[in-house]
């Protein structure tokens, strides 16, 4: 943290350049409508950093994480992991190195052990060693080892989210992508998850990309962040830079909570300047 420049200090873990994705969806009149979900998004995440992606609902945050994990492929632009374009990587290897925790926990049917054990099984850990290794992952996610045999469906939302984190940790990733892991939780549970994530970064040293639409969470644990609005990366910088002196009108509006969530960047900026003009 502190006052580093916009670019990360030290080695770049994830380098994203000019990422664009257009999606066609069936519109109500039966035709197909094209929309740009991401447009020319560029940013870089430093090794060992907690990097925030903040933006309003529908900004494309989830889509961005799906691209980083290889669940989708961009139309244009590139993603580099440790300087290597991910196009050249085996997809299954990429995903083991860049883990992901979804907005909804999406646990597998069965016990907590089934879930965490699945990641270990993919890693080739023999059956007998899974529970021991898995218990360590549970503990890192803040759950006691006694959870191993519990039915995943009978857990609370917060516990489920922790199991999802433990499952992702079991693959021993270098980067962990977290998509609004607190969106279904009450404020107290949410803040415990947020501090857990901060702790993981410090203890395990895993690089974290943390998606949220809550400014406070970003302020709490992120070193730097990207502001994503209407599919465009409008500003990247350290948390103090973004919060105290945003260089872009859209960022300022968003931080003040005055951005129309469905508005595009162009509109927001136009609105902002109209306001600035009319205010005098």
């Amino acid at each position, binding site marked *: 943290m502190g006052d580093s420049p916009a670019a990360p200090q030290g080695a770049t873990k994830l380098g994203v350049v000019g990422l664009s994705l257009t999606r066609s969806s069936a519109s109500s009149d039966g035709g197909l409508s094209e929309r740009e979900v991401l447009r020319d998004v560029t940013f870089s995440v430093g090794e060992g950093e907690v990097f925030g992606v903040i933006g309003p609902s529908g900004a494309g945050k989830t889509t961005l994480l799906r691209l980083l994990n290889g*669940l989708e492929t961009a139309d244009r632009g590139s993603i580099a992991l440790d300087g290597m374009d991910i196009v050249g990587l085996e997809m*299954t290897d990429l*995903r083991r190195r860049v*883990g992901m925790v*979804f907005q909804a926990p999406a*646990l*597998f049917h069965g016990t907590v052990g089934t879930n965490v054990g699945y*990641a270990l099984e*993919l890693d080739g850990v023999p059956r007998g060693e899974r529970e021991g290794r898995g218990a360590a992952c549970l503990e890192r996610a803040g759950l006691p080892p006694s959870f191993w045999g519990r039915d995943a469906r009978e857990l609370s939302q917060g516990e489920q989210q922790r199991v999802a984190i433990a*499952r992702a940790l079991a693959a021993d990733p270098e980067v962990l992508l977290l998509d609004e892991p607190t969106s279904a939780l009450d404020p107290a549970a949410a803040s415990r998850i947020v501090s857990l994530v901060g702790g993981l970064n410090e203890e395990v040293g895993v690089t974290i990309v943390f998606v949220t639409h809550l400014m406070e969470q970003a302020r709490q644990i992120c070193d730097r962040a990207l502001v994503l609005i209407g599919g465009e990366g409008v500003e990247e910088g350290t948390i103090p830079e973004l919060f105290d002196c945003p260089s872009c009108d859209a960022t300022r509006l968003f931080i003040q909570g005055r951005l129309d969530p469905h508005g595009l960047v162009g509109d927001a900026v136009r609105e902002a300047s109209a306001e600035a003009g009319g205010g005098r």
Partner: protein
Amino acid sequence: MTGYFELTWLDVTVSVSLVGVLLVVVLVQRLGIARGVFIGMIRTFAQLMIIGYVLKFIFDLSKWYWVLLMLAVMLVVAARTAAQRDESRQPGRMTTAGAAIAIGAVVTMGTVMAFVVRVRPWYTPEILIPLSGMVIGNTMNAVALTTTRFRSEVSHQRGQVEAALALGATSSQASSRPFREAMRAGLIPTMNALMVVGLVQLPGMMSGQIIAGILSVQAVRYQIVVMYMIACGAAVGSLVAALLMRRQLFTLRHQLRSEYL
């Protein structure tokens, strides 16, 4: 022949009143499918009449190319029917269904004609056409059930499938549960048929002979072979259908093609 009763066209005409009952039920309850019932009634009559003549023509000529043409037509109709039951936007559904049914039928009929019913020539239409028809029909049902179930399972378990992919699972690993569910759904009707055959419904091949008053031990033997045959066709068809569906629902880079769900 004792007990054999010859049907006249008049008798058949009287039987139309049975469909009349269906039509009345549909109309009174306003089920909105009266048109379908009417068309179905006409089609049953027309199709069976026409197929009677076509089969007689093919039996008389006994040429391999007519037999194969007939089988090809049966296959296309089966593929279309199976594909229509799968209500998705995915292109190539009919090819998938056609390939699965064809492979299931060819493997089964090849084995049967080579090792069990070793009739010569192999294309003897009186044998090959009805046996193939039964295999194709049953495989069609298995394939339709497998493909629709695969798609709906992946759709329902989309979160879990993508969570597995995100952990580094291959598309086959991530879809192993939908795959099994789909194959099970495809095979259960055939399994049930093996369990209750003869206890509830007498198979068509035996019924025909019983009514004609000539039930023979031959018919029973044939029926046993037919049951094992359709089981084989369903198994191969369902497996091929599931494999093809998996190929189509995922990209080679192990990404789920959600636009087809």
